[in-house]
């Protein structure tokens, strides 16, 4: 790891100020992606601004069907939240299969979403749930937030403060893990909302998370795996690498969507 200067922010305002003052600063929340990346010398920020000690970023609030999660909330806390589980168990299930128990103690929802790794789990949930990303400047819908590979709508001096969503009628998540890295080779989040169905796919798209509109159309009438019998999705725009071809991932999307539906209806 190259030299860096560590700062511990105690408020969002302080973090924003530190971010604007430093030459090439990065925010660190749980650090479960950033620290390994720095160790590989693939990132070399001049300054690190630690967000873990900002009280405003913590906490889970569930009011009726509205869920709001502070950006600094670790995956383990989301996975264990009985309040979230009561209205959207799929969200807890998803949080509980990120990384491993030790990673889940550190990694945060805000960090995952800000990084927008094309194989990360949370972006699929946020897109599938029509979620909102709250920042130090504004509220952005998930539809507009995830721009591309490791790219989001976040500006250089903008910090995610929380995410929120309205619990759907039903939801489910299924992922096919790369057997070595355990990252999603394809993960699908399905959700049935009052006004339609969403199918969000991670781990498969060249530009990161996206909606499988072909599958959404099929499920509009019947939120059941039977409705996906014979369904296909185009392989164009899907990742092709040593682990799986684009065609294989296209097939995995349908298979994982069926499993996610079974989980949602189970």
């Amino acid at each position, binding site marked *: *790891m*190259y*030299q*860096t*200067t*560590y700062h*511990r922010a105690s408020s969002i305002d302080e973090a924003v100020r530190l971010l604007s003052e430093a030459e090439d600063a990065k925010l*660190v929340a749980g*650090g*479960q992606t950033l*620290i*390994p990346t*720095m*160790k590989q010398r693939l990132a070399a920020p001049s300054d*690190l601004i*630690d967000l*873990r000690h900002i009280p405003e970023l913590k906490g889970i609030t569930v009011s009726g069907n509205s869920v709001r999660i502070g950006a600094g909330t670790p995956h*383990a806390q989301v996975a264990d939240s009985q309040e979230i589980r009561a209205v959207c168990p799929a969200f807890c299930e998803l949080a509980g299969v990120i*990384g*491993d*128990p*030790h*990673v889940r*103690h*550190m990694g945060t929802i805000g960090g995952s979403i800000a990084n927008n790794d094309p194989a990360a789990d949370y972006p699929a949930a946020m897109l599938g749930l029509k979620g909102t990303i709250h920042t130090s400047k504004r509220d952005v819908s998930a539809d507009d937030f995830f721009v591309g590979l490791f790219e989001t709508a976040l500006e250089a001096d903008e910090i995610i403060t929380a995410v929120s969503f309205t619990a759907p009628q039903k939801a489910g998540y299924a992922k096919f893990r790369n057997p070595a890295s*355990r990252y999603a080779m394809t993960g699908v989040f399905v959700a049935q909302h009052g006004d339609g169905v969403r199918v969000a796919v991670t781990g498969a798209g060249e530009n990161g998370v996206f909606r499988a509109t072909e599958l959404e159309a099929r499920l509009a009438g019947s939120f059941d795996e039977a409705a996906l019998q014979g369904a296909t999705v185009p392989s164009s725009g899907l990742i092709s690498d040593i682990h799986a071809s684009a065609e294989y991932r296209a097939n995995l999307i349908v298979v994982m969507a069926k499993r996610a539906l079974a989980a949602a209806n189970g």
Partner: protein
Amino acid sequence: MAEITMVVNGRKVTQTVEDRTLLVHFLREHVGLTGTHVGCDTSQCGACVVHVDGKAVKSCTMLAAQASGTEVVTIEGLAKGDQLHPVQAAFKEHHGLQCGFCTPGMIMAAVDMINRHPEGLDEKTVRAELEGNICRCTGYHNIVKAILAASEAVSANRVVAA
């Protein structure tokens, strides 16, 4: 440079180290506790697992500066004098180690796992929860046995584990 203060195994430690120092290097090279191992150094193997404020974390994936102000427990902090922690005793009894390199991380992960499951553990849960700890010798079988036995021993004795 950063002045780092933390309580390690009940003892307050203050050291001035480079900001980029990883927690695992702080523990091994600055505090002199070499029981915590560096295995893969890429956040996968879990040989470096320690407890920070009561939660298992990979100490190769956290800066010492991030851990400043916390309470850290390492493998050296588990036994009470000559009396092994129930999880250590179970690993010994059930032959849960061969070369022993992964063992510090395995045991710290197991203690955390048992703490998080006061209702008890089954084999499926133990195997799933060991996802972040890699052992290349044992095939995991005796590690799983040891953790299940320790979980029962801890529940039976109502021992509050570290």
